[in-house]
């Protein structure tokens, strides 16, 4: 009875809030229709860019949520701990190479990695998997091959992307070290709900599947929305021609290409076509674009911020940039 009394004010507030929220959403639609965004060029461009980023990314988030829910309901607790029985030097490369089997882009790999860590996989291995899967999977490697076909640097780019992607993912996993999942993952209200349900009469497997799939989609979707909004704003107002001024400058060209990958927030399954077009930049800078982009960009930053603790996100960002920069500079020395 006390529980019912305690929850009643929340429910009342929610009902009122729901009405206000629905009203505001309807108002936004009517306002947009009346404002006629075609008269305001930047607004029209922003809405088109925001829409396109969300439309291309959300199906991948849904696929990731589907995979995550399947792991939750089908993989018994402890199965993933078998990876920990491998000799320590092999654990992280094995986690990275597991990404070869997951043809999903970076938006889909975040919920999968989160679920893997929550289900008992070592956090360092989960992070290595999360960073490696969008770079190493067959679709991405195939698209890299197609994009650079006919170039003298073809195998440098295809092999380099695979190897440098794996090395960077393993290096970041190594930096994560022995941190526990509680040190990495932000607690989620949905998780508490899910556990709350599990403490009572257990729900059927199909019900838990759809609950987890929906929760993951809604959770990742909100951060994707934030990241896509930032990326669309930058793309609407930033003249991209300014980045070309640094092409050919040692080290700076690599840094700029990593920065550009962060800003553009492209999908890993198509970013090779964009990288290939930066003919003013050398293979090392293009490779830095292809390796760091699927690991750190604006939309991913928002997803990471919602999934992991803030300090950990910064650690991943710095480690990815540092490892990619060092790797790309080595390539520059070796390949010219």
């Amino acid at each position, binding site marked *: 009875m006390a529980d019912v009394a305690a929850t009643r004010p*929340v*429910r009342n*507030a*929610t009902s009122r809030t*729901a009405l206000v929220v*629905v009203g505001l*959403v*309807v108002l*936004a*639609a009517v306002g*947009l229709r009346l404002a006629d965004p075609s008269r305001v*060029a930047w607004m*029209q461009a922003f*809405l*088109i*860019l*925001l*829409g*396109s*980023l969300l*439309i*291309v990314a*959300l*199906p991948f988030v*849904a696929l990731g*949520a*589907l995979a995550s829910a399947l792991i939750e309901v089908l993989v018994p607790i402890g199965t993933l701990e078998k990876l920990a029985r491998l000799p320590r030097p092999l654990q992280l490369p094995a986690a990275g190479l597991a990404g070869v089997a997951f043809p999903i882009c970076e938006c889909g790999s975040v919920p999968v990695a989160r679920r893997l860590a929550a289900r008992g996989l070592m956090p360092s291995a989960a992070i290595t998997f999360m960073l490696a899967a969008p770079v190493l999977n067959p679709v991405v490697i195939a698209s890299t091959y*197609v994009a650079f076909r006919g170039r003298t640097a073809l195998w440098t780019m295809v092999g380099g992307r695979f190897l440098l992607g794996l090395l960077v993912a393993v290096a970041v996993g190594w930096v994560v070290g022995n941190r526990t999942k509680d040190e990495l993952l932000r607690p989620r*209200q949905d998780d508490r*709900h899910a556990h709350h*349900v599990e403490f*009572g*009469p257990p729900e*059927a497997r199909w*019900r838990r*599947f*759809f609950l987890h*799939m*929906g*929760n993951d989609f*809604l959770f990742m*979707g*909100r951060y994707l*929305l934030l990241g896509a909004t930032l*990326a669309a704003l930058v*793309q609407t*107002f930033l*003249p991209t*021609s300014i*980045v*070309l001024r640094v092409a050919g400058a040692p080290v700076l060209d690599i840094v700029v290409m990593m920065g550009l990958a962060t800003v*553009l*927030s492209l*999908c890993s*399954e*198509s970013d090779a*076509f*964009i990288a*290939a*077009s930066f003919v003013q930049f050398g293979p090392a800078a293009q490779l830095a674009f292809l390796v760091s982009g699927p690991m750190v960009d604006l939309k991913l930053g928002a997803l990471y911020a919602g999934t992991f603790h803030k300090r950990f996100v910064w650690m991943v960002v710095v480690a990815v940039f540092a490892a990619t920069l060092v790797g790309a500079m080595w390539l520059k020395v070796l390949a010219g």
Partner: protein
Amino acid sequence: MRDAVVAGRVARTRPREPGRPQAWSSSRVGGAMVIAAWAGLFWFLFLTGRDDLYLSTRTIWVVPIGAVLLMAAALGRLASARVRTPEPMHAREVWIMGLMVVPVVLVLALPPATLGTFSAGKRAGAVGFAVSVGGAGSGPLTLIDVASAQFSKSGEQALAKRAGEQVEFVGFVTRYPDTPADEFLLTRFIVTCCVADATIAQVRVVNVPPGRFETNDWVEVRGPIYPLGREVIVNASSVEAVSRPDRPYLTP
């Protein structure tokens, strides 16, 4: 405590507890509605063909995939939304759900539109696309061949060999303050994945009737082509207004 421990077994043998009737979980229903809204948007884009305004032909397949996946997720969540102990739903959650629906509403309310002169100015001479080496060697010239010439030496050489050939290009009119009255830039966006990676193919059209075409008007230009280094000129023999193509963006 004992009841809690054996609750699973009790639930299987007694599916309905008389004292605790099932109720709709507002959290699950609300979430299902948000997912359904996105599923609805994907179906709308797929059925009306408006997905062409946001994606390239390479990635357009994600739209039906998204529509089916999200519809299944919404229906499944709704089917599992009646529970004995509904989860509490806080006001913050409702606001977030509302925010997640806003892009759906905006895309639905936005009249069919494409990037125009404003974005062309921001992207001129910058990000490129999948360069088709030597693509301008044979067959009718396209604006993709022109873009290749503007981004690669081999493309430039291939296009130079075809100077003086007749072309037919469709694009939109772009003008800058210093553009002469009898000229304009014919522009078309090239999209590899989604509009976010759009870059431009642009030719300077000369010998145009002054004052006949406004910025962002879609036109078809015919005439001989003259590549001058990275700048490409078309001496217009005819310029006609046309409606925006069904696929306004080119895919390399």
